[in-house]
């Protein structure tokens, strides 16, 4: 299942996220902004993972675990949906 950012989410470079449907707002760190921007571009989980490994020089297992945690958090707050 590939995660996709729900429609119309407002994401600022400062890390501020606004969901115009629910009115909820959140803040994320620069790494989070990077991941959300990748999701917005329609990148697949594996592509995001590859980029994290290269950019932050972490091992694949660590990056995979952190990305999964972050995506679960986004799902919990209804900011992403999963495409079959």
């Amino acid at each position: 299942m590939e995660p996709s950012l729900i429609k119309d989410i407002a994401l600022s470079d400062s890390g501020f996220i606004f969901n115009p449907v629910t009115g909820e707002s959140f803040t994320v760190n620069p790494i989070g902004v990077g991941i959300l921007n990748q999701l917005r571009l329609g990148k697949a989980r594996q592509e995001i993972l590859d980029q994290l490994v290269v950019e932050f020089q972490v091992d694949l297992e660590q990056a995979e675990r952190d990305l999964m945690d972050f995506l679960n958090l986004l799902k919990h707050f209804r900011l992403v949906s999963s495409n079959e």
Partner: protein
Amino acid sequence: MSRPRVNIAVTGLNAVDSPGPGVPVIRGLHEALSFEANVTGLAYEALEPGIYMDGLVNKSYLIPYPTEGIDSLRDRLLYIHQKEHLDVIIPNFDAELFSFMKLAPELEQHGIHMFLPTLDQFEERQKANLSAFGKKHGIDVPESLTIHSLSELEKTVKSMDFPLMIKGRYYEAYIAHTLEQAKGYYAKISAKWGVPVIVQKFVKGTELNVTGLGDGSGQTIAAVAMRKQFITDKGKAWAGITINDPDLLKITRNFISSTHWRGAFELEIMKSDNGKCYLMEINPRIPAWVYLAIATGQNIPEALVNLALGKPVSPYESYEVGKLFIRYSYDMIVERNNFEQLSVNGEFKQI
């Protein structure tokens, strides 16, 4: 091209911790593009802040409480009309609406226009009738029953699961987790507001509101949705943000087209955690947070005045999403003489 001048009287100048809508309504009237508003304030108490705020009203008058009866309200309004030549009145309190609706035909003969719900619409949406209202108009409403006695309460709650909401017919609501709590709240509410008391299934979720305006023929003239961001201990929104939830706007349009709602309103909606929307309450008037709707592109008070005057009004199609209102309190310094004029004479003109 110069704008026509319209003389408008507005109630609800009590900008206090549980604020009336008068002050934001007047701000909207002063920002109207289609007319120049000359505003008269109608107050129940000499300490209502809107009376003394700079640039808000030209003159204020005390009016009698609804409990004093329709006759004294009529006499007072006609006296004010003699002096101010009113074109439109915008009543803003639930408790006064019935009197104004009753007086509407008579005031109309004197050239004073209003744009209020019909008496049937007003009655149908009362909290005690909300269950039937939901069924009739195909709107989800939490299961609720009206209770007239303690024994009826005991019998009723056996068929419902706790927690339950125990609500007064006009104001106040409490969450009861046990029968004992429910009995306590029943006693408290019935002593204050009388019966029936409403027992309603508790819905856990997010509190959302929509303010809007129906033209009486089923057309939506305005609709703006807001999520409460900060709620006071009286349950009032002290901050909120405009949202674009298609479910809320669909419910609002259905509500207006199905009821042919005439006038302004506020829908209180609870969106449950599984995404289902329940209509909790319909307030048949402009809410105190209306300035957020005005600032985001829908001047509901202006449209309401034009509808009252029988002028054509185009529906608003959109509003700015993601804009916040944050309310604040502010200490005005008022000359004793001004307070004295209103207290003694029942009227006060801003210099």
